């Protein structure tokens, strides 16, 4: 196996293994709090903090955590970070904390975080684990931004609360409701899979031409 470069650790989660669009992990917040860009950004920031922080500690203590209690320890680390993030959000941005409601607490069971701890951070040195976590957190953030932009622009006619269209625009409220979340996610996944298929076909065509 070729040696992996630090950039690979970072970039992997952003695009090639994007947690939402490629691995379809952590869909609960992706569907629940992407009804406005503001909520999505707050959620992504909180998840960023928890993901990077808990992967750092899972990697730092990886030699001391016996296999039998690793999941209990990981969940303990995640829960600590989520509690801290929850209190900080409530103190700093009470409005957004209120809007996110129960979903901040639900970061504890976001499977992206446990998956990165289990699959990567617990087996790799701290530097790589943190880079990997940052990449995945960015990947999650990008996915949340795409989802929430589509839903807020169509569903409320605004972006970050600024109204984009004139008064004549009747908001497509459907997109801010849960079914709108599913439809948006499905459409984005469909588009990406079409995009990948097309690229693959193009690459194959080039290979064939080269061979000929």
């Amino acid at each position: 196996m070729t040696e992996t470069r630090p950039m690979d650790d970072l970039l992997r989660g952003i695009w090639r293994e994007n947690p939402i669009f490629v691995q379809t992990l952590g869909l609960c917040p992706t569907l629940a709090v992407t009804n406005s860009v503001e909520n999505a950004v707050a959620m992504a920031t909180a998840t960023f903090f928890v993901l990077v922080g808990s992967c750092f500690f899972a990697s730092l203590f990886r030699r001391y955590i016996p296999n039998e209690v690793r999941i209990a320890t990981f969940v303990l680390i995640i829960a600590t970070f989520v509690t801290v993030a929850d209190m900080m959000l409530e103190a700093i941005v009470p409005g957004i904390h209120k809007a996110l409601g129960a979903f901040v607490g639900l970061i504890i069971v976001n499977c992206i975080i446990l998956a990165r701890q289990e699959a990567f951070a617990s087996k790799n040195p701290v530097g790589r684990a943190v880079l990997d976590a940052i990449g995945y957190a960015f990947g999650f953030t990008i996915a949340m931004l795409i989802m929430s932009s589509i839903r807020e622009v169509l569903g409320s006619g605004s972006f970050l609360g600024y109204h984009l269209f004139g008064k004549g625009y009747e908001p497509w409220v459907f997109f801010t409701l849960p079914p709108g979340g599913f439809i948006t996610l499905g459409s984005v996944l469909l588009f990406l899979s079409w995009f990948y298929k097309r690229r693959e076909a193009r690459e194959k065509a080039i290979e064939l031409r080269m061979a000929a």
Partner: protein
Amino acid sequence: MTAPHAHGAPANGAPPPPPPPPQVRASSLLTVLAAGGAIAGFLIVVVYGWAAPIIEHNKAVALQGAIGEVLKHPTQVDTLFVAGDTLGTQLPAGEDPKRVERIYLGYDADHRPIGYAIAVGEPGFSDVVRVIFGYDPATKQLIGMKVIESKETPGLGDKIEKDSAFVQQFRGALTPLAGVKPDRHKAGDKTQIDMITGATISSRAVIRIINNALTRLGPALERYSQEAK
């Protein structure tokens, strides 16, 4: 593939037993979990110590704003304490100041009472919904209503907070309130509140919370208003 018959291996060709797993001592598992728990607890306590006063302050500011909103911006607000079925301006003796229910009496610029702001909570659809409402016992009408805490479903139940058409209906509504479906609304009936389609349980919860609070506190409010005159 079967392994070649080694010296001492069972003659029936079964693979040799796997090496015993390394012994894990129960004490080391316990130590790791206990140490992790202690560190986690310490971190949470530190952050709580920093965040709790800020959160308290934010809540107080939010409450002031909410009182102003539901009582149409009073110039002065008195805090009244509920003790049994009476109201008083003094904290009842021997009560925990954090647990005593408070009611806020707002006055206009000419020092005439506008009405009482009452904050109460009851279960809604997903968790406790807390509302604050302004109430004038003389006319039995509401002055305003605001949801101050709810975890209702984003996009559906949270309309009790964000749907201004729903919130506006409480201004001047006559108590006790009755929730109706929008198409059954009788024109001119001031007790009727149109429930939100898709948020029936949450709408009903707000109406129930206000009605219950007034059944419980209404007589005390009336008595206090009479005495004040």
